[in-house]
């Protein structure tokens, strides 16, 4: 072991972290990034090198938000939020947890932008609020848009966390009462060319933020430009948003068997059958939730018995509602997503098993309870029909 290594592991030991713990962490980072076991030592040395250097400056700006993405980030454990903001980044501005307040907080932001021009990371949470001449959100006595205009052009890169930052999220849902917008679209309007990395879902999963931190800081992918090559056409990291939930779902076997939950609280639900029939948007939603799961891998939506509502989709609230209705057509395999809109010809591409499942479960329906655009959903489920035949509710 080299001399530097010893110092690094001594430091870890002081903090109660064993070398074994550390390598385990590097292993999970490597797995997150889709790297093989053989890459673990490379990740480890990248982390060590980063630890030896000074902290990278970062600022976290709050737009039209619910604070859920900050909250979600605080639920991560490897690293936890304290390690992120004390050991990895110097988070010089982050409204929800920073010590300073008011003018002192704004001064910390200004100092960072001036001192680290072109070198700091900007994280953006919440929708960009353009409504009421930008007064739907006021920060420090001015429209919140001014803060973006002052900070964004000077950042090395912008990480948009959560669906609101990516494309306006629920805030932009019809009728978009406050002029919500994603940060990338706003920057385009403003002709600000700082690169944006989009991390959708509502809220963002902290595992994905950590993956970006590792990419940018430890593996040097921002400096090398590599990170931008690893994004899809919507600026999402392919490694995270390249496959559907359906692709990796532990309930997929039941889908293949045609075993579905038709009603919550039913015996089928107790058996953990597929939730597609109660509206699961897993087949259309491109995230790796089934792999990374949520809250330190405690669970995730489908595991807890809920259908996916597609919060990682673009324009998800208009696109995927009513959430408990099945989509008429489902996408399987490697089709192109067009800003979250499922193309009409997907059913034609779907394989025999899927097409079979669709036919078996009879899907002749129309859009209902939706506002704005989206693919067709059914308006009534089989079990409803049966109950109505029996003279049930009406």
């Amino acid at each position, binding site marked *: 072991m080299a001399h530097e290594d010893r110092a690094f592991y001594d430091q870890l030991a002081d903090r109660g972290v064993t070398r074994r713990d550390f390598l385990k962490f590097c292993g999970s980072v490597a797995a997150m990034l889709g790297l093989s076991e053989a890459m673990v030592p490379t990740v480890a040395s990248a982390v060590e090198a980063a630890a030896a250097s000074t902290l990278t400056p970062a600022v976290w700006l709050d737009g039209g938000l619910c604070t859920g993405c*900050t909250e979600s980030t605080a639920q991560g454990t490897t690293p936890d939020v304290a390690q992120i903001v004390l050991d990895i980044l110097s988070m010089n501005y982050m409204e*929800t*947890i920073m010590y300073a307040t008011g003018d002192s907080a704004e001064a910390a932001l200004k100092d960072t932008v001036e001192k680290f021009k072109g070198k700091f990371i900007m994280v953006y949470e919440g929708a960009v609020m353009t409504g009421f001449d930008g007064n739907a959100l006021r*920060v420090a006595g001015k429209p919140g848009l001014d803060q973006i205009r002052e900070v964004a052009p000077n950042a090395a890169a912008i990480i948009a966390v959560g669906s609101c930052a990516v494309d306006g999220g629920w805030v932009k849902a019809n009728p978009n009462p406050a002029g919500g917008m994603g940060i990338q679209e706003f920057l385009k309007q403003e002709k600000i060319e700082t690169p944006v990395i989009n991390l959708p879902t509502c809220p963002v999963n902290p595992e994905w933020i950590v993956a970006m931190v590792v990419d940018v800081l430890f593996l040097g992918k921002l400096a090398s430009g590599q990170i931008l090559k690893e994004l899809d056409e919507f600026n999402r990291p392919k490694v995270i948003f390249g496959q559907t939930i359906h692709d990796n779902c532990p309930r997929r076997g039941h889908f293949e068997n045609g075993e579905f939950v038709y009603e919550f*609280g039913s015996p089928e639900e107790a058996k953990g059958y597929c939730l597609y029939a109660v509206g699961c948007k897993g087949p259309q939603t491109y995230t790796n939730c089934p792999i990374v799961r*949520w809250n330190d891998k405690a669970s995730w939506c489908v595991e*807890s*018995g809920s259908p996916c*509502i597609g919060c990682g989709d673009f324009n998800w609230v208009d696109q995927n509602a009513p*959430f408990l209705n099945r989509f008429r057509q489902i996408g399987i395999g490697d089709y192109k997503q067009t800003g979250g809109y499922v193309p009409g010809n997907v059913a034609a591409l779907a394989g025999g098993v899927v097409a079979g499942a669709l036919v078996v479960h009879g899907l002749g329906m129309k859009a209902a309870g939706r506002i704005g655009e989206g693919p067709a959903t059914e308006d009534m489920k089989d079990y409803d029909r049966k109950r109505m035949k029996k003279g049930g509710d009406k």
Partner: protein
Amino acid sequence: MATPNVVIDPLTRIEGHMRVECEVENGVIKDAWVSGTLFRGMEQVLKGRAPSDAFYVAQRICGVCPISHGHASTMSAEAAMGVTIPNGARIVRNIIEAAQFLHSHILWFYTLAALDYIDPGKALEANIADTYALAQAAGTTTSNFKAVQDKLAGLVAGGQLSIFSNGWFNHPAYAQDMPPELALIGVAHYLEALEMQAEASRVIAIMGGKFPHFMTSLPGGTAWVPTEEKIDDILFRLLKVRDFVNNTMIPDTLAIAPFYKDALSYGGGHGNFLSWGVFNRESLEMKDRYMPEGAVFAGALKVESANPDSIKEYVKHSWFADSDGDKNPAQGSTNPVWTDYDVNNKYTWAKAPRYDGKPMEAGPLSRMLVAYLKGVEPVKKIVDLTLGKLGAAGKPEVLVSLLGRVAARNLETAVVAEWSIEWVNELIAALKGGDVKFFEASEPSKGSGAGMWEAPRGALGHWMSIEDGRISNYQICTPSTWNIGGRDDQGVTGVIEQALIGAPCIDPERPMEAARIARSFDP
């Protein structure tokens, strides 16, 4: 010419966006204006959607208390549809809600509020051996105090203070007689609390899929079905959190509070308190909740029953159309109109709700006072113990203050922690007894209903009207609307505004006391 007002904008370490403006004279706050500086329009977004979708969307109004919003929304839908949830679903919801209370209160005290009472810079001066001795004497848990101090020293040596950048170190409003060792204990527990709030939210994730924003308490019951391997995950996590609350959070509160006894004498405000009650018993009745409903008015410590029909919202000083004013939320409307920021005219995106015409404080202080006055046993016990430690035995009225509000939230945490264990055991007993129903199907067509509930930060109501199977109107009155709402049409100040008036402001450049009071509401 008068001196310019003291302004805090943005107020940090809260959930959302808020501005505080104060008129200060001779070191005392004479007048105050509180502005909610963000409008998103959730109520408009929900109109026209399927009633079952409201649960998923409405909870996204708040990333810190989505569980309470989800429950209030679902309850309004259930009331509108006339569906009664099975007993098992009631117990499951109580446990999820309790886990969120634990999460939120721990996060508030340590991550958001503690830096207002503990100067982290002082922790560098602490003697390590003395810190262990002090922790033992205070009856609180010990940590690796050396490592924590080294971490802080490392930040300072590195030249970048990260989240501590530009903080109000050495502020004269910090208790000058607080030993640096207590500051180091505070910083160490600040870091440990991050793990504990995450542990509480893992309970929500197991039962609800994830946190923030959960997936299972949909109208009719819960989509989560308890199984053996999940029940132990929940029980033992809650036991761990309860132990932290009892062995660390409560002793820390009792160790720090005596240094801020002056905060018993200001920050109380109007002295009106409102709670809709939270945590249902088998009857599902609002009048029969573990944490009871009630309204308390200034001048007399007695409780009246709380009635949602007594609410009206006013907009003379808010950026909404006049037609939105003077309405009960059941008939409420939302038509934003931007003018300009002017404290003499319109200055906030929050409506001003009133109860029988009076501004009412929402939050743990309201709940704990109502419960104390109604004789709820675990509440009486822990409040009386605390009053004794503060030299105010038999004087619950001292709780109507800044320090009382801080203490009430932490004491409530201990009460809810104990109840959460009780409810897991209740769930186990129900399963043993064959109570395995968790969902009741329903068909929305027409109707209207309200979900009156409590978020960790206070009284919450959702109102839903359904026509032709779609939401025809939706209104929300959040606890922060009660607390941060500004002046009403009669010019009467809002809750935080009034709490600020009369409080000290010893350094107008760094208005620490004002920030403390505003944060004590966890807005």
